């Protein structure tokens, strides 16, 4: 294992803050001497996000209702439609210079799916791909979602893996713009909460195997310092 990607383990970070951090890394990668791939692991406080082609029509409740629940909606540059993030969902944002890694987008997305499939497998859950709808599925229910954006050949955004996530907010939308699908989580499949730390470890180790890299732990402060210095 020669290659190392930086890995930041963040307990909780606001969606907007995480997005700015990703953009900062993309900018640094493109315009400065900063030359590392970075993977962020985190959870978001409750938020709905709409991808490029996302339609508010896929929101089944009023915005006033969401306001009353304290859940904001954010427009973002990733692919995909509407989705929900919240506590108990592991969000992984790899910021990777795909061309330099010799990775095609399709191959990369397939790799991210594989990370989720194998991680679920570690907890005894069998999940699979659906070639028509990317992401990871158990029957008609989605266990993990993918949405990435590419700027200057650098991929950002990533995947969201439902671990112990509250499912109710998904009933307020047509997730990913699809009707007649449901969402699920490890908790729901196993009828019990999974320790998030164990899930983070599983995802981290599968990521290392699938992309043939070592994830080198760095804390957020140090990453920000590297970005500033570059």
């Amino acid at each position, binding site marked *: 294992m020669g290659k190392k990607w930086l890995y930041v383990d963040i307990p909780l970070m606001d969606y907007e803050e995480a997005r700015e951090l990703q953009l900062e890394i993309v900018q640094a990668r493109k315009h400065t001497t900063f030359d590392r791939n970075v993977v962020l692991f985190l959870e978001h406080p409750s938020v709905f996000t709409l*991808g*490029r*082609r996302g339609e508010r029509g896929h929101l089944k409740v009023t915005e006033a209702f969401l306001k009353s629940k304290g859940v904001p909606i954010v427009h973002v*540059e*990733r*692919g*995909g439609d509407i989705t929900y993030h919240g506590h108990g969902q592991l969000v992984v944002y790899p910021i990777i210079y*795909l*061309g*330099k890694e*010799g990775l*095609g*987008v*399709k*191959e990369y*997305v397939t790799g991210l799916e594989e990370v989720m499939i194998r991680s679920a497998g570690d907890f005894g859950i069998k999940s699979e791909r659906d070639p028509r709808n*990317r*992401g990871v599925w158990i029957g008609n229910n989605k266990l993990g979602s*993918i*949405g*990435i*954006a*590419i*700027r*200057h*050949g650098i*991929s950002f955004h990533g995947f969201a893996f439902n671990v112990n996530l509250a499912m109710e907010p998904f009933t307020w939308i047509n997730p990913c713009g699809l009707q007649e699908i449901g969402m699920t989580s490890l908790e729901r499949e196993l009828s019990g909460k999974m320790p998030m730390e164990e899930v983070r470890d599983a995802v981290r180790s599968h990521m290392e195997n699938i992309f043939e890299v070592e994830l080198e732990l760095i804390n957020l402060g140090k990453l920000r310092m590297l970005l500033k210095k570059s």
Partner: protein
Amino acid sequence: MKEIQELKFPEDLRYTEDHEWALSEGEGIKIGISDYAQDQLGDIVFVELPQKGDRFEKGGEFGTVESVKAVAELLIPISGEILTVNSTLDGSPELVNKDPYGDGWMVEIKPSESDELGTMMIRDTYVQFLKGKK
């Protein structure tokens, strides 16, 4: 993904590091994405392009291409005003995969600066650039 030697890069085009190509045609310059870019992205399901008359500075985002849940930003290599947009990509985005230098072209721009085209990479330089990435 294909090897570089399996991909096509016509001699008469100019290229950017962000994998756009440009070709001078009459008063306009046609722009699209390279065979390498379409192969990287995989099956393209949606192309978002600007409107006729929109103005851009070199390096500005003029649209996006979307494939397998990935959105890639398109950066314009030439400053100027959009003369025509390839609207057939609306219904047939797969043309970008099938024929990136022909039916899969994206926009035609009327350049506002002189010789930005001349500063873009020629075929051999672009191919060397791609090989350096591998």
